[in-house]
């Protein structure tokens, strides 16, 4: 199924051992294969790329389920099939419930009013973040500062999506209390 399957086996096995370069090679090499499989099930280019990224994130989470010595292509194809079905379902549900409003992102009609205030809160923010637990800090940094999706942050941090949500909620609550205490608006 996959042209470079033997090589993929070696790279994925090395990635399981923690070899970052092999893992990068593996993900780069399998991406066209994943994209081609996704294209068989989906039409829209943005949907295909979403599935490709979702598959890469899933591969990251379930890489321990690959059994060294077995072919990689069926393992990978099953993940692509599953994520494509999930995407089709999600889009079906979304299309039935959501409407697109391109100006909904604007909060005020006057463009200048939408700009961030010019105050520098960096120091106070750093101090408040210092009071958070390591997992709360990690969750806040990945999702709010680095703007990762919850799934990406989950793959990177090892925290579950639910745990990330809880930690972000607690972190914001704690920072809000600290801000009130210090008189920061």
């Amino acid at each position: 199924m996959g042209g470079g399957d033997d090589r993929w086996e070696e790279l994925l096995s090395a990635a399981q051992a923690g070899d970052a370069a092999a893992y990068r090679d593996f993900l780069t090499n399998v991406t066209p294969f994943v994209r081609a499989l996704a294209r068989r099930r989906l039409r829209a280019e943005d949907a295909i790329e979403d599935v490709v990224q979702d598959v890469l994130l899933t591969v990251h989470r379930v890489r321990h389920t690959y059994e060294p010595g077995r072919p990689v292509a069926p393992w990978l194809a099953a993940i692509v099939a599953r994520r494509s079905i999930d995407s089709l379902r999600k889009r079906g549900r979304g299309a039935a419930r959501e409407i697109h409003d391109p100006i909904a992102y604007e909060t005020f009609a006057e463009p200048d009013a939408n700009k961030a205030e010019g105050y520098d809160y960096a120091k106070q923010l750093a101090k408040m973040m210092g009071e958070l637990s390591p997992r709360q800090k990690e969750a806040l940094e990945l999702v709010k500062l680095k703007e990762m999706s919850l799934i990406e942050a989950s793959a990177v941090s090892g925290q579950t999506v639910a745990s990330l949500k809880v930690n972000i909620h607690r972190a914001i609550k704690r920072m809000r209390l600290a801000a009130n205490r210090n008189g920061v608006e």
Partner: protein
Amino acid sequence: MTNRPTNQLIDLLSSNVKPVAPLPPPLARAGVTLAAMALLGGLAFVLLHESNPLQSRGPGGEGLVGFEMLAMLATGILAVTGAFFLAIPGRSRYWLGASLVPFAAWLLLSGAGCYRDLVRTGPAGWQLGHSMDCMIFIVGASLLLGAPLLWRLSRATPIDPLPVAALGGLGTAALAAFLLQFFHPFAVTFIDLAGHIAAIIIVVGLTALLKRPMLRPA
């Protein structure tokens, strides 16, 4: 999902890769789990068993009960093994159907046994036996056996949790029904059989309902 280009995502993931221990083959994992369940069931048998299950249908019914119990055991073993295989991406989907053959045989043999008793004993074959006790036993024993099973299955973070949970539920219910035979000193009537089937449906429904919190799918 994200506005990040795919190559940036690859950089992000590869720079955060940590060593992981590959899961042992599903057959080995299923074997260890079934051995632990057998140990638990064996202990319950030694401490609590009341009767010889083969004699529950009276003289001449031993063969039928023996095959019935064999079908229950085969359903349990194949369903639990199938759940471990289906938890891994790319493994054969035939595992979904493998346990259905002995399951059908189990229902047919139980039905045949009930019919035999109905012919032999008349209307007594329709009477309410200990259906509620049996249901409670099957559901209770399934929960005891099912919780560690689901925990072990969750190690694979299955990408499609429903068939994994459903097979896990069927497997534990079948093994619980097998164990029940050792605490069941009477013949199963049609009403009891309906109770057994209801218990299986409850267990499979519960595991399917709890698939996300229990299996933590990817």
